[in-house]
Each structure stands twice: as C-alpha cells, then as structure tokens.
C-alpha cells in the first residue's frame, strides 16, 4: 500500500497508457459483438499481425536495425506514421479475411451460432500457428525508432514520450471512431444493424457491407493498438495476442460488450486496476485481482458497467 501512496501518479500514468492499448483492442471485440452478437476469437491474432507489421515496416521497409540509433524530427514522424498506418491496414485486412472465411459463408447458409464461433477459433489457431512456424516460436525484437525520452516529471510520475504518445493519440482515435459511428451514413448503418438486423435489411441496408465494415474498423483499431504496443515494448511473438486479447476482452465485458463507451472505460479501468493490484499485492496477484473485480462487477451489473444503457453509442 505504501508503494501505491508514494508512487500513485507514476502508477496511474503507466496504468492509463496500458489502459489505452486495451481500449483499442477491446474495440475490435466490441464492434463485432455489437453487430453479430458473437465474439471474434481471432481478434488476438489480428493484434499479433499488427505488431509484426510494425516490426516489418521499421526493420525491413525502413531498414532500421537492432543497433540503429533512434531517429528524430520529420523522419521520426513520417516513420511512425507509416508504421501506424501499415499496422492498421494489415490488421484491418486480416480482420476482413476472418469475416470472409470464418463468418460470411456460414452466416449466409444460416448455420447455428456455434459454427462461426468454432470457425473463428480455427482462424485464430491457423493465424497463430502460421506465425509460429514462420518465426520458429521466437520473440522478435523491433528496432527503436522513438527514443524513450523522459519529457517531464509530474507529481513524481516520469512522463515518457512513447507512453505519452499512446495517451494522446489513442483517445483521439477513439473519439474519431465514436464520431464515425454516430454521424456518418455507414456508422448509422452499423448502429441500425446492431439494433435490429432484420429491420435494417428491410430499410435497404446492405448487411454484408456493414458487417465487413465493422470487422475492418475493429481491425483498424486493433492494428493501431498493435503499433502502440510495439513502440512501447519493442517485442512480439506469435502468441503475443493471447494474454493481451484476454485482457482486452475482459475490459470489453467489464465496460459492457457491444458498447463503444464501455470499451473505453473498461480498458482504462483494467489498465489502472492491473497496475494498482501489482503495486499493492505483487505482480503475481494481478490476474487474480482483475478477475475477482470482474466477477463482482458482473454480479451487480451483468451487462457490464455501461451495459446496454447508452444506446446512442452502442454499435
């Protein structure tokens, strides 16, 4: 407890940075669930492909090596932006493939709800094992593009540039997504399908197009989180998405799965909870604490903290 009191702001800053990574991954789960009422079990592998995309861009496309010095100025901004965009595109494309292969044909044939669930798990395993074979199961390090410079110390919290980037850019992406879902034609279509699929179809909404768009948007957000993760931790491997995906799924359920605002608060709450629990009880108690809190929340709020209450932001 002494650590929590004395290091509160440092822990909070780290927890918020980690929380925003969860927010973006949990959007991938929540978007798909909101529309299909099914969990996209392959989202963790969509994340994993995003992390490898960041590595490939910085290492192979831009030619930076493990001993390269961090870059600065316009080159840095351009390189990071390229890595971010490519990661988002790669994850988005993988998400689209998952929808096409694991969901669409089964949905068009009117199979029961379990079949796409299993096919999504199958896709998850295929993606993960393919990467395992490609990398011989080894961790892959990412070149350091962004120096881990400390910008300031606020209340004892060391504000590091890479974590600050996550804290600033991730919420911007979240609010852009929220605007998109609330205000654009396609976003309204997504919300309509989310509320009532049959009625939406009768109103002339192209169901397949909306579902594909939902997977794509979820994938783009997951890809962005993969970029942020890789920039902060500079390390990935074929099963990197498993633990993070589980955490993000937990965050989505905590906030209210299917609810964009729920994913936001669930992700942040989980990031902070994990950090505080590690500080007070020890890191080995982190998962235990998180799931005890999740169970308690669900006992009182079975649909998560936000549940179905915020209709206008539900996808």
């Amino acid at each position, binding site marked *: 407890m002494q*650590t929590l009191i*004395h*290091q509160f702001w*440092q*822990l909070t800053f*780290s*927890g918020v*940075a*980690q929380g925003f990574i969860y927010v973006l991954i949990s959007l991938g789960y929540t978007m798909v669930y909101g529309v299909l009422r099914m969990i996209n*079990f392959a989202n963790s592998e969509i994340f994993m492909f995003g992390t490898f995309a960041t590595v490939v861009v910085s290492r192979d496309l831009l030619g930076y090596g*493990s*001993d390269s010095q961090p870059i600065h100025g316009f080159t840095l901004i351009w390189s990071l932006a390229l890595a971010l965009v490519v990661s988002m595109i790669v994850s988005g494309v993988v998400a689209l493939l998952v929808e096409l292969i694991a969901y669409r044909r089964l949905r068009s044939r009117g199979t029961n709800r379990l079949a796409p669930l299993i096919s999504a*798990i199958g896709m*998850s*395993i295929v993606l*993960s*094992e393919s990467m*395992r074979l490609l990398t*011989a*199961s*080894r*961790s892959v*390090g990412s070149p*350091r593009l962004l120096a*881990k410079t*400390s910008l300031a110390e606020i209340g004892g919290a*060391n504000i*590091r540039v890479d974590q600050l980037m996550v804290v600033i850019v991730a919420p911007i992406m979240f609010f852009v997504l929220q605007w998109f879902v609330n205000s654009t034609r396609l976003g309204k279509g997504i919300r309509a399908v989310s509320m009532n699929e049959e009625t939406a179809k009768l109103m002339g909404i192209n169901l397949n197009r909306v579902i594909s768009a939902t997977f794509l948007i979820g994938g783009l957000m997951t890809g962005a989180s993969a970029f942020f*993760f890789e920039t902060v*931790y*500079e*390390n*990935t*491997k074929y*099963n*990197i998405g*498993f*633990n993070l*995906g*589980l955490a993000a*799924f937990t965050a989505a359920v905590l906030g209210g799965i299917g609810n964009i605002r729920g994913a936001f608060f669930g992700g942040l709450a989980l990031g902070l909870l*994990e*950090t*505080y*629990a*590690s*500080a007070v009880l*020890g*890191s*080995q108690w*982190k998962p235990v604490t998180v799931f005890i809190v999740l169970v308690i929340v669900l006992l009182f709020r079975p649909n998560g903290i936000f549940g179905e209450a915020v209709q206008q932001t539900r996808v």
Partner: protein
Amino acid sequence: MKKKVLAGVAVVTVALGFAVSPADAAVKTYTLAYQGPLTGDNAQTGIDEIAGVKYAIAKFNAAHKGSIQVKLVEADDQGGAAGAGQVAPGIAKNTAIIGLVGPAFSGASIASFPFYKAAGLTLISPSATRVTLTDPTVASDFGGPVFHRLPSKDDKQGPALAAYAIKGVTAPVVYDVNDQSSYGVGLSGYVQTALKANSKVKLAGADAVDGTNAALDLSAVITKIKGANANVVIYEGYYAQAASFVKQLRDAGYKGIFASGDGTYDPGFVTLAKDAAEGARLTASSAVFQDAGAKITADFTKVIGTAPGTYAVEDYDATNVFLTCITKGATTRAKMATCVKTGTFTGLFKNTIKFDANGDVSGTGFINGFLVKNGVIISAGQVK
C-alpha cells in the same frame, strides 16, 4: 477463452558422422537423444547446447569409423513443462535411445521424469539447476535414479549470485524478482536467504512476474523498484523475459546493477535486450569452451559451423559420459544406467566426473561470474 494448440514439437532424427554402408555389417549403431528448447523464446540455449552434443558425437564417430556409430534424436520441449510432456513419452518409448542429454530446464525436467523413470532411460542434464531435482525428500521433483546433472545446484548459485550482484556496491539496496518458474522460484529463495544473512545489504523488496509472457507490462514492478531506491536488481528467470525486463527497467531510467542467474546466461539475452543488457552481471555453473584452447575451439567451429556457445562444455562432457559407456559395452538402457551411476569419467578440462547416489557430481562444484560488455558476454572468473 480458447484452447491453444501447444507449439508442435518436432522430434527429428539426425544422423551424425558417417552413413553406415549396408556392406559394412560390422558397424554397430547406437542412439542418444538431446532434450531442450530448440524453438521458442529460449531456443538459443537449446541450439548452443545441442551443438556441444553434436560435436562430441561427430568426434566420436570419426574416431570409431568402421566399428561404432552414434545417432542423435532431437527432442524440442521449448524449455517448458507442457512441451516436455509432449516429447518425453515418445523418447521414452523409443527403445533404441539408450541415453539422453538433458532436459535443459528444471521445469521441463520435472515434467519429463515420470516417463523416463518408467522407461529406465538415463538422463544427464547440462543445465538444470533446481535443487529438488536431486533431493529424494521431495518426491514430486526428484529425478532419481535416472536423473544426473553436471552443473552445481541453485543452493550454491543463489549465494554466489547474491554476492556477485552486490560486488563493489557500497550500500546495496536490492530488489529481487523471479519469473514464477520452478527454476526461478527456487533460485530466488536461495538468493534472498543469502541477502538477508548479509548485514550490509538491504533487501528492499521482492516480486514475481509472469515468466511465460515475454512482452509483459512490468511498469508496476519497475515503479516499486524505483520507489525503493534500489541500486541492485536481481532477476531469477530465463533470458527472453530477462531481456524484456531489463529493457523496461532501463527505459524507466533505472541506472543501477542488473544481475541474473544461469537462465539468463545466453547470447540471446544480449540480442533481445540490446544496449539495455550492457553491464549486466550473470552467474552460471558453466565453463567457457574457449578456455579449452584455440585448437579445439577452431575444430568445434569447423565441425559444427558455429563457435561454441553457452553450456557447450557441459553438453560435450555429458555426451562423452554416454559415449565412454558405449565403448565399455553399455549398449542397453539398463547397462547404461549402471555405467553412468558407477563410472568415473573425465571432462573437457581434465576434471573428474563421478555422480553421487542422487545424481549430482561429487565434489564442491563452482559458479562462474559473467559480464555483458560491448554486446558480448565475457567471463569474470569464478565467484567466491
């Protein structure tokens, strides 16, 4: 959330030395095995280890051309209990295998023991150091009568690691972190006991992290370390997680000493951690192959294609114990067990290798210190 298929574990048979001609009926062929991490986060350890095994077999086959040839079966357990549980039954059933070098890691060893005990297959580990592996009072971990090992145990490494970590530090404030593995938890206990016994040392705190997740967010632990004003951090775990830890530690502005045990004694640690590994202090009950001389080092490089790496000496010696027994007629599992248990052997450095009743090498053993300097792990001599 979902079931993961554990990494497929390939068991590949590799014939070393010279092919046995059908015409040459007098040539007798025997099979040994190696078990360790050949893929996965800690694969570099296994790759370096098996190179030592292959070198010993290649030299043996060349010396016994026309009479005896030895083949090697590779078993990849990825350094973990789950992987060991997948490969050990197959190795145990393959009765052609009369001896196994490994398992490399303690957790994988414990998971493998039931299969090898039932099959009577003799094991010599080059690097598994958990104390209970040779402690008959801890029946769940005890590998006897089949298990033997060459390195010193963690009850010797723990105090040595503690001493080496604080060496030269005027007022050591130590934070101890382990990876929750069988190996890490055990070693951590001995390190902490040694630290607490030293009145000049302040043990500021201890923590445990998830050693199976090499990309874990360790910010909470690091905040505690910085909050405790620790100037020495000791980590008991394997190199992939150690690399992630030391990187996050340095990124957070930690300037003190980072020390770790034989699980981190691997070039893969430096490769993954890059500059953050600089200055890291490591301990291992392992000798440096290059100290055996330039001639044999060059020969090793020529035969294997790479320079000898970590644990090459111990793997070379373990393999030679089996090969010596084969030349003495130990050509079945039962005979091999007797030979290894009762025989006296000579190591690369002319050291005597004789196992006690529980599988440890008789004598006091040694722990060497190592330092990461200019991106290379260099020897710092024996830790007293």
